[in-house]
């Protein structure tokens, strides 16, 4: 699977130049692995951080977008006459406007729609954009636009979309390509070897990313140069998309994304609104800001596809797996993406005979986008519940069942080795620190409050790599400017980068200025997604600091008249190992004083050949189920993840717990509801679409990191955490609920409505 282009990359990715020498793995560290508060914490808590939504430029206009109110329709006529005459309105943009006729929703070189597509394939498709002096005026204007639609039959149900007479979202039927099939071994023979077979179907409805900062951009032109402030996870990706859309040289498009209010995958794709803002800014000669209302964010800025997953699994009485038949169906909405889920099932556990089939269909709904571990939480919900059921049937500890079946290699590629796989350590350490054995052995509680414990495991199928280029400048007073392209999407990128420089050079993080996520002033970095910013960019930061250090040691060797190999740098002082008399503070280096600055450039080294690298994890939880109300209280959650070396324990904890919270939402509270009568989203707001609040999350969160550097993978020994942190959560909850009340909940959200129904059915059967 490593040969595939990662799902979030549709752009041209440059190669990273290589150097001869890379730093050796750290033996001991003094800064790395500690808890360091964020270098940009002041800005974020004081209100001085300027998010794209806060950008306000002189003479700026405000944009609004008129969207199709139907699930499926053709635009017959647009009358903007009234809107154009309204107070404050400066420009009305349609598909007929200069420069607005272009393809959109590109996937690997093919366009699946238009920027303004008269064929509206889902509720919320863009029909007209307006820019006015004030935002209320812009919204007044779009309300005054009259559009005549031909309303078409629609389909919003995944299975119904495959019916021969289903309304076609695109010409040629609703199947998105052929179903993808991965096969290994002999399925029939595998099932024949099994002592028993379990087959279950699971459903996970569509989930919405819902980052707190809405999607949007500000665009400003200076002649033929465009500057965009965008709430994005990848400024270089937006730069490429905008240059393509507007026919501009890359150098003429500057994209700035210093702060951004969350993305979770939704902000990996360039929005139509960014192009609208740029076009309207060019037509008016004034900056234009467009931020989407929250309701539009729910409808049109991506989602995690809903899936129906059937697993049929053959098991021997000793707990080994003999065969797995995995089928997944999901919709990418109205435009081409991918709703496959099977990867985790193909790789996580040893099973010699596997067939995994993923089917993606078009429906008249908003396009899916990658969302935190695309496909993996859905698969975990199914696979990890099936594993739990096997353990129940065999009456063995579900931790032991997993330990027995860990696939140490990439089994689908017939045993390509991994640079590290510490899933066993995740399970063992997690179980120990959670007090798993004791909690499982507790006496059955009586009454209507029942306690249960659950476990689930995961891996994540990517770990990053080149390209990444970082520049570190050390000034003669021992302060540092760090320059890197990566976005800090809330993951603490700037902070661990500063920590790495502090580790290498001894400069305090308070004496650093960090420049990042600006296509005009920083070096190319891939978008921050895929849990790969740390493992891709941290080695480049280290290499840049290493390059600075090397130059400092050369200077000191000359000035102290000792061999460079005899020198070491600690706390901004270079000293001889053999002669403690010979030492010099770097601020006293004559050459540095003359130069004023030392500049080091760091490149990400290549990944090792012939091996894969994946992060792993296991999560444990304890729940209390109220059998009268169907309410589930999450008493405690523990995560034990193998993410290689932990750089900043403070932000590592936070990201783990945040992943668990998002997993609680996926498993217990969230569900996009599309009205069957109209095809419209019925809960496009935070009141009806329930993301977890502080009242919904576990009462306590615990972290048991494995923290073993993967030194074979990169020079910082790091793998990712962001996505794995949310993958097993929902399944662990379902397993705990089953442990508590003996009910296997196959559909998310596991909420009181569903649980009281299942409890009533259970009583009826009893």
């Amino acid at each position, binding site marked *: 699977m490593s040969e595939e282009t990662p799902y979030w990359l549709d752009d041209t990715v440059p190669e990273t130049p290589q150097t001869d020498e890379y730093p050796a793995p750290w033996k001991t560290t003094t800064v790395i692995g500690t808890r360091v508060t964020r270098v940009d914490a002041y800005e974020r808590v004081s*209100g001085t951080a300027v998010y794209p939504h806060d950008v*306000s430029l002189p003479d700026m206009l405000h944009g609004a977008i008129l969207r199709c109110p139907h699930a499926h329709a053709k635009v017959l006529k647009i009358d903007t006459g009234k809107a154009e005459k309204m107070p404050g309105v400066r420009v009305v943009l349609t598909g007929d406007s200069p420069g607005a006729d272009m393809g959109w929703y590109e996937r690997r070189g093919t366009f699946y729609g238009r920027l303004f597509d008269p064929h509206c394939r889902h509720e919320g498709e863009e029909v007209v954009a307006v820019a006015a002096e004030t935002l209320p005026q812009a919204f007044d204007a779009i309300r005054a636009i009259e559009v005549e639609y031909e309303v078409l039959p629609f389909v919003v149900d995944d299975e119904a979309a495959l019916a021969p007479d289903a309304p076609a979202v695109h010409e040629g039927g609703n199947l998105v390509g052929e179903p993808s099939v991965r096969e290994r071994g002999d399925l029939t023979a595998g099932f024949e070897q099994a002592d028993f077979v379990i087959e279950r179907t699971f459903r996970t409805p569509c989930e919405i990313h819902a980052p*707190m900062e809405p999607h949007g951009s500000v665009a400003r032109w200076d002649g033929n140069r465009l500057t965009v402030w965008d709430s994005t996870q990848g400024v270089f990706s937006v730069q490429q998309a905008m240059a393509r859309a507007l026919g501009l040289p890359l150098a003429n498009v500057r994209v700035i994304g210093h702060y951004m*209010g*969350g993305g*979770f995958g939704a902000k990996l794709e360039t929005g139509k609104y960014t192009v609208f803002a740029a076009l309207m800014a060019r037509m008016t000669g004034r900056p234009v800001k467009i*931020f989407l209302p929250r309701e539009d964010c729910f409808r049109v800025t991506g989602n995690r596809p809903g899936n129906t997953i059937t697993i049929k699994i053959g098991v021997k009485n000793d707990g080994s797996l003999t065969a797995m038949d995995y089928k997944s169906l999901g919709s990418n909405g109205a435009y081409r993406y991918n709703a496959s889920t099977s990867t985790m099932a193909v790789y996580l556990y040893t099973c010699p005979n596997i067939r995994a089939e993923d089917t993606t269909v078009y429906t008249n709904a908003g396009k899916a986008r990658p969302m935190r571990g695309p496909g993996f939480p859905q698969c975990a919900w199914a696979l990890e519940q099936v594993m739990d059921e096997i353990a129940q049937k065999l009456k063995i500890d579900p931790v032991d069942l997993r330990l027995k079946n860990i696939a140490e290699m990439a089994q689908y590629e017939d045993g390509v080795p991994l640079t590290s796989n510490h899933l066993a350590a995740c399970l063992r350490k997690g179980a120990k620190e959670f007090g798993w054995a004791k909690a499982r052995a507790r006496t059955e509680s009586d009454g209507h409050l029942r306690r249960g414990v659950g476990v689930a495991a995961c891996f994540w199928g990517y770990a990053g790599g080149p390209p990444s280029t970082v520049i570190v400048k050390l000034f003669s007073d021992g302060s540092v400017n760090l320059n890197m392209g990566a976005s800090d999407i809330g993951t603490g990128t700037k902070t661990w980068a500063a920590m790495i420089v502090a580790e290498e050079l001894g400069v305090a993080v308070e004496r650093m200025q960090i420049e990042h996520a600006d296509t005009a002033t920083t070096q190319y970095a891939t978008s921050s997604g895929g849990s790969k910013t740390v493992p891709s960019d941290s080695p480049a930061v280290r290499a840049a600091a290493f390059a600075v250090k090397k130059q400092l040691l050369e200077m000191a060797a000359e000035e102290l008249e000792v061999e460079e190999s005899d020198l070491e740098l600690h706390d901004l002082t270079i000293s001889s190992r053999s002669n403690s008399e010979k030492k010099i503070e770097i601020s006293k280096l004559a050459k540095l004083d003359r130069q004023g600055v030392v500049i080091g450039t760091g490149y990400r080294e290549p990944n090792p050949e012939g091996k894969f690298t994946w992060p792993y994890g296991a999560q444990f939880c304890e729940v209390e189920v109220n059998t009268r109300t169907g309410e589930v209280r999450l008493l405690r959650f523990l995560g034990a993840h193998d993410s290689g070396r932990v750089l900043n324990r403070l932000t590592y904890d936070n990201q783990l717990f945040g992943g668990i919270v998002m997993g609680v939402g996926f498993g217990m509270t969230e569900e996009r509801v599309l009205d069957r009568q109209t095809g419209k989203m019925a809960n496009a*707001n935070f009141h009806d679409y329930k993301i977890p609040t*502080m009242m919904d*999350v576990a009462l306590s969160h615990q972290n048991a990191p494995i923290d073993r550097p993967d030194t074979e993978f990169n020079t910082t020994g790091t793998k990712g955490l962001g996505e794995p942190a949310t993958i097993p959560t929902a399944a662990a909850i379902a397993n705990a609920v089953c442990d508590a009340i003996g009910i296997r909940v196959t559909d998310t959200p596991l909420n009181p409505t569903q649980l009281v129904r299942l409890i009533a059915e259970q009583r009826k059967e009893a």
Partner: protein
Amino acid sequence: MAKKVDPRKEPDKGVTRRGFLGSVGAGAMAAATGVARRAEAIPEITEPDEMIQVALAINGRTHRLLVEPRWTLLFVLRERLGISGTKAGCERGECGSCTVLIDGRPRYACMTLAIEAEGTEITTVEGLLDGEELGETQRAFVEEDGFQCGYCTPGQVMAAEGLLRINPSPSFDEIRHGMSGNLCRCGAYANITNAVTRAAELKKGDS
């Protein structure tokens, strides 16, 4: 009471002496009578393009400006006064990103009309700073890493500040209830809980 202004007669640039005096009076009166009475005090229905003069006391400073009656306090803070620490997340009273203190109580600025807020003391996240020094609640959020992307953070900080002004020693459950009107999609809730606990300590002078 607030003064209705016909924009055709009085340009919305600058404030006339008459309007200035009128709005100062309005502020003083509304302060005495409270927000609810203040809203009732506008008897006529205003036209959409009619501007009303208000005086808003924000972070200890009075801002006098013309507003449309439909403008929210959030809109005025961000778009008219450039006080952008207060964030817009949903603009329909569901996410809490725009939480500010109105007379010391946490309120959603998106659900408060600017004209309603006249005569009250409004505090935004910038108002917790003492010069460049962070306030106790802000320091606690830094120390406990009570955020990730930081977008909901000004609202979380203000909700915490409001909670602690009402209840200086909240229990774990009181913190959960007190902070439950503020969504954090990054899910930093565990650390936010710790930050509120820490802020309570800092406010009592524990370092």
